[in-house]
């Protein structure tokens, strides 16, 4: 497959760029932050995103979605990254949709996928239990009980857990890990919202004797580990795309600033030391772009090597976003440290998205293991 966008994909990119620039630019992010509302994002924006087909980007057309695939999803996430847009896109449209598409029964797909595409139901993935990503380290238990299971355990870093209607919970059953669809309002589910450094919302979710039905098993009993990896890889690739957007916007903003700001009677962009750092950063952003596109294509094609490409992309895009935003703040000097400028927001988002579902170290280690060393 050629490493270029198809015409359809180029159109999606242009549409997403235009939409987020107009409807959810950094100024909207700032406004939401200052308002400190309980939702943490704009439900009206989410409705518009559903109308645009973004919420259903991974939902097959048969279930009311746009069925555009991962490259398209990545292009939308990249625009989100450039604009710092707050929305349940990742947790619902990427993670939950790919979970249901890959592991859902016919009934589950028919029930939930249209609700994802229409934007009416929000999901959250309750997998991590440790502060450092270790997806198979699951202590939450699911014991057989009645015609279903009883869940007990504590989940951390549950993105959008505070607003989710349905949780996807990973728990340990006799024969491995199993995923469950859990009503967030079910008895025994306690959710505590946490606001993160990047204004995203994560939650601590405590499950105490939560009763679920056998029909709520997602992907078969004991089949959760492989399914979880697929869901996480979908999320990681799209996070790589978002990190790419963060990098590109940090870079562009910084280059603009280098062309405007004067010190010592010269534009600071004329100083060779900054020029060389900017030129190096340009190369790094291009590398992150190539790796990310390849990972998204690999997911679309269902390649066996997709996990390798995903780890490559997440590691590289994460490191580059950190470098781009750090260099951005440093080259902005003092004003880069002020809340009045946006560049600091990109640094915060780079750090948080870089951490989410495994940082560059995690994915470097995973990649090496997948490659046999």
């Amino acid at each position, binding site marked *: 497959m050629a490493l270029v966008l198809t015409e359809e994909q180029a159109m999606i990119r242009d549409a997403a760029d235009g939409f987020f620039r107009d409807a959810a630019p950094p100024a909207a992010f700032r406004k939401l932050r200052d308002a400190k509302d309980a939702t943490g994002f704009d439900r009206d924006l989410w409705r518009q995103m559903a109308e645009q087909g973004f919420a259903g980007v991974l939902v097959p057309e048969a279930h009311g979605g746009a069925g555009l695939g991962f490259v398209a999803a990545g292009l939308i996430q990249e625009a989100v990254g450039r604009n710092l847009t707050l929305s349940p896109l990742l947790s619902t449209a990427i993670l939950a949709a790919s979970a249901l598409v890959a592991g859902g029964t016919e009934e589950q797909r028919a029930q939930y996928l249209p609700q994802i595409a229409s934007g009416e139901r929000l999901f959250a993935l309750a997998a991590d239990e440790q502060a450092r990503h270790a997806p198979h380290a699951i202590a939450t238990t699911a014991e057989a009980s009645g015609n279903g299971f009883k869940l007990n355990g504590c989940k951390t870093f549950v993105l959008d857990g505070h607003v989710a209607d349905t949780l996807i919970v990973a728990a340990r059953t006799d024969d491995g890990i199993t995923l469950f669809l859990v009503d967030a309002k079910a008895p025994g589910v306690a959710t505590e919202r946490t606001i993160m450094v990047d204004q995203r919302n994560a939650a601590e979710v405590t499950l105490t004797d939560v009763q679920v039905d056998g029909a709520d098993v997602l992907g078969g009993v004991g089949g959760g580990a492989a399914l979880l990896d697929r869901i996480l890889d979908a999320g990681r690739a799209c996070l790589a795309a978002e990190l790419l957007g963060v990098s590109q916007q940090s870079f562009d903003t910084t280059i603009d600033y280098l062309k405007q700001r004067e010190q*010592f*009677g010269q534009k600071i962009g004329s100083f060779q030391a900054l020029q060389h750092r900017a030129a190096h950063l340009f190369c790094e952003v291009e590398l992150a772009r190539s790796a990310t596109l390849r990972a998204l294509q690999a997911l679309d094609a269902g390649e066996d090597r997709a996990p390798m490409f995903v780890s490559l992309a997440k590691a590289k895009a994460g490191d580059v976003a950190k470098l781009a935003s750090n260099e951005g703040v440093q080259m902005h000097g003092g004003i*880069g440290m002020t809340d009045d400028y946006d560049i600091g927001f990109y640094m915060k988002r780079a750090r948080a998205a870089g951490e989410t579902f495994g940082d560059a*170290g995690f994915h470097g280690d995973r990649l090496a293991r997948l490659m046999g060393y």
Partner: protein
Amino acid sequence: MSDTLDAFRIETRAWLEANCPAEMRTPVARDSDVCWGGRNAKLSGPQRAWLDAMGAKGWTVPEWPAAYGGGGLSKDEAKVLASEMRRLGARSPLSSFGIWMLGPALLKYGSEAQKLEHLPKIARGEIRWCQGYSEPGAGSDLASLRTSAVLDGDEYVVNGQKVWTSYADKADWIFCLVRTHPDAPKHLGISFLLFDMASPGVTTSPIRLISGASPFCQTFFDDVRVPAANLMGEAGKGWDIAKYLLTHEREMIGAMDFSAGGRDSVSQIAARTIGLDGEVLGDPILRTDIVRHEIDAWAFGLTMERVKDQAKAGQGVGALSSMLKYYGTELNKQRQELLMSVGGSDSLQWEGDDGDQSRSWLRSRANSIEGGTSEINLNIIAKRVLQLPGA
């Protein structure tokens, strides 16, 4: 000599035991535990007692001459005092830009009248000072500042704007770089002026940083009238004083950020947080990054020690303040990046005490900007130390 010192030690120990309140012998835990003094200082009873006792002896500034409110101690006596205070766990009675920055400059460049007026009040914590250096258009290129001071009779009329004035909203007086000679070459038109922040025409507004609140302000001067006698040093020679102070500041920031006393190393925190897998840290890639950082941090700590020891031995150490500022602050940023990685999602939290780590990380990003950016310090090393040619 050693006998005299021993006697001084016994005497000092007894005095500290008698005068340092019990509450002042516990570690500093929060911002309000730090005593900055000043006209509007809100001090607890023990803070006030401790400051007054130490101020009266001049031991807030042990080595300044007694005539200016100092303790008049020798270097060796001052070391004894410091070690006895450490022994007791006594807090510093006074944190003060007056002591750290203005004082040394006043001693070197001030008139006798200025020394007598200002130094004792600094020593006793009566007046709190802030520093008026940077301007919106003059950051790294500090000498391009435009705040003007025009002589009108026996007063200067000051107009302009400063940024990054730490605690300007809490300070009583400011030491301020102003342009008195608009037509002179830019470094020669600058003067060093002292004035009261309560003067009509001075306003301040706080700057919000990415890490949340901040001690920094913008400060505006609108026809502020300052007695000409408040000029420090010669008119047009303020740049020399500024450079002297900046060098001082750089050493301080480099050293402070790096070696905030007795803190745990990244590897200790990581071993606690992540745990070991056999004999080694449970994350092999992060372990590599941590050990590289600690090698640099340790070698840097030894370099600070060596610089000090060489200075004591009377061996020239060159213009190393820029090296300490550059390398120390870059290391501190790296430390904070690593601590963020060690903490994982826990360290992404933002609100309340849980957000301490993320705020420390964000705060650290300013280290390589404030008090001379890393780039400026590399320029200085290249030109002054290595004597590389100008462009």
